[in-house]
């Protein structure tokens, strides 16, 4: 099986779908001739022509609005928002339009669009190239929210998202585009090559939306995470020596509560990890649901390890980033409670 990094896997997903489905088209800032500032669409315009893969004006709201119209016609547009930090101008079209079109029209119209957007920090991006705003979208009923943690899932989930009949916001943790970064920023960079989840089939396959993945079975404590934090949590589990069950949620909405519940019932403990700011982050919802579903099983408070409630700073990003040390501390606290 070929080895791909996440960029190649995403590219391959779009390639496969452009090939299979003439209703798939791709547009966004710099995605055409150039192939995207992160190169995720490299080569696709050349292969499929500029009517199927093309540049868009710097107008996130216009991009999503036009995509909603295309979706209503019956196409499956895949659009790129260059950084998740720049998705807010499209908030209205996503929240008021894409998310509610099927509902308000009694099912007559829908917006089967996919909005890809790189998120997360750790690249010296400062406050406008580092954000993880997934909780806002998870709050909006009618949207689906996805964040993969590895090339294999990235491709399978993106194909599933494109085929999905509902609008999907697809977050791509840019820090792990090239390798499974575990938060040890002072250690040499690891590539995806050689990583089991960097083995990616060339052709079509899907990873279904709404199913979490138990990446590391364990008995002591359940760790809920997604995106870059999956690798941080795996590192923390290894380094702390605590037998944590690390669950990669993959999809935030719909959420795979069954897998979560089964795990917490077994472990009696839960640590939730995300990079986004803490207050009203997706961890709050996870904490609430775990508490609701597993109250009598809980032997320690559910802990959240998250970004601080500040903008993402540039120079201090490693103090901001919830790295393996902070996760390990939380694991230890929960175990010692």
């Amino acid at each position, binding site marked *: 099986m070929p080895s791909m990094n996440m960029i190649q896997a995403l590219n391959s997903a779009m390639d496969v779908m452009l090939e299979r489905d003439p209703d798939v088209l791709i547009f966004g800032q710099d995605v055409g001739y150039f192939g995207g500032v992160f190169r995720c669409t490299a080569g696709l315009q050349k292969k499929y022509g500029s009517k199927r893969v093309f540049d868009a004006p710097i107008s996130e*709201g216009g991009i999503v609005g036009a995509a909603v*119209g*295309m979706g209503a*016609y019956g196409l499956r547009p895949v659009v790129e928002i260059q950084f998740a930090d720049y998705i807010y101008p499209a908030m209205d079209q996503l929240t008021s339009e894409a998310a509610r079109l099927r509902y308000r*029209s009694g099912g007559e*119209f829908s917006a089967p669009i996919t909005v890809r957007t790189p998120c997360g920090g750790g690249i010296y991006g400062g406050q406008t190239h580092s954000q993880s705003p997934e909780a806002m979208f998870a709050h909006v009923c009618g949207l689906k929210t996805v964040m993969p943690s590895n090339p294999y899932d990235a491709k399978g989930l993106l194909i599933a998202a494109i085929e999905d009949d509902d609008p999907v916001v697809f977050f791509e943790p840019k820090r792990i585009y090239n390798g499974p970064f575990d938060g040890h920023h002072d250690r040499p960079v690891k590539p995806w090559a050689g990583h089991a989840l960097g083995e990616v089939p060339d052709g079509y396959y899907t990873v279904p939306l709404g199913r979490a993945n138990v990446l590391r079975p364990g008995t002591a404590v359940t760790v809920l995470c997604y995106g870059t934090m999956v690798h941080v949590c795996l590192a923390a589990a290894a380094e702390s020596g605590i037998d944590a069950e690390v669950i990669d949620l993959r999809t935030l909405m719909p959420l795979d509560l069954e897998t979560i519940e089964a795990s917490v019932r077994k472990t009696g403990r839960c640590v939730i990890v995300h990079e986004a700011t803490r207050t009203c982050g997706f961890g709050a919802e996870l904490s609430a649901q775990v508490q609701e579903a597993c109250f009598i099983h809980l032997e320690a408070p559910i802990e959240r390890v998250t970004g601080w409630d500040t903008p993402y700073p540039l120079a201090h990003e490693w103090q901001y980033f919830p790295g393996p040390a902070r996760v390990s501390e939380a694991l230890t606290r929960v175990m010692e409670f």
Partner: protein
Amino acid sequence: MSSASLNPEASVAADSGHQPLRFYVPEPKCRPGSAPDFSGIQLPTEVLPRPPVDASQDQLHAYAYGLIRVLGDDHKIIDEWNPQLDANVLRKGLRSMLLTRIYDQRMLRAQRTGKTSFYMQCTGEEAIAVAQAMALEPDDMCFPSYRQQGLLIAREWPLVDMMCQVYNNSEDRMKGRQLPVFYSAKKAGFFSISGNLGTQFVQAVGWAMASAYKGDTRLAAAWVGDGTTAEADFHYALTFAAVYRVPVLLNVVNNQWAISSFQGIAGGEVTTFAARAVGYGLPGLRVDGNDFLAVYAATKWAIARARAGMGATVIELYTYRAAAHSSSDDPSGYRPEGEGALWPLGDPIERLKQHLIAIGEWSQEQHDALTSELTEEVKSAGKEAESFGTLGSKGTSPSTMFDDVYKELPQHLRRQRQQLGY
């Protein structure tokens, strides 16, 4: 603090040698208490000829500032833009406009008597939606605002279906979810109305791109009000339409008011709304929106241009919102009583009627008979619709509340539905 120091303009010392700066807040000429006054509205006297559909920007510039008219003040035709319509077509237009008005009247009454919570009329603006629907192909896709019910009526969509939506009753295809008048009728080429002003404008552009992408022949057309031009989606729509040369009609219904704000608050004092098009390199046509023939002719021009691969046209339909903004609004709080009656461009139904009479194709008797017939039609549709319930009596099951959020009902909504007892 003395009231003098509260004059903000006096509060920063101007020590720079420059005069203090100023800004300006537009205000309409008349407010309640003063007499209505439309003397500021100058109708262009020069009539611009119908340009070729592939005219260049330079040739089209003047059309954004003029006013395309076909029905003159004497109810005779001004030739330049005459669409040469058969009298049968004109009578069909008259019928649809009249039906729209009678429908509006009945539904407003229904609101007043508690059968629905809300209603919005399009009184005085009937020519726009009706003539444009007739100029478009039946399957061209319309992205309306809430004031183009005339599109559905001109396309002969069943009144009963519309009424069931207004009543949010058991036959409401939108399952009681939407505000009254927020119709959706895919089969009639009528896109679901949003409630969020303007969002449909750029969606229409996307839809038209999709149609062109598929080699389809269906155009898209969209409508926003004068006030709504200030929203982002207006800018997105014109930008995308210009960049990708999209076959779409972008209509701005300038009915002079946005709830209580006159069109000056949207920028209408300094230029026309058709002129917005010029800035993007698009043609802008300013049209007498109360002139059925002019609306039809201008729309046909824009359609031909789009079909010729020349892209989008912006059409400003110059009209007057004769009624209240909605059933929740009372315009006596912000504009003079009786302004509508003095509107210099008259009433669209009256003007087409008088034209038909002037050319010997209609009479007052026929008009009265038509009015009675349509009143009956609306009444009997009303009865039928009411048999499916009115607001609060006989609706869809509350369990439908959980449908259509997603294509498939997800687990968490199933649980929530169960909690509600379904």
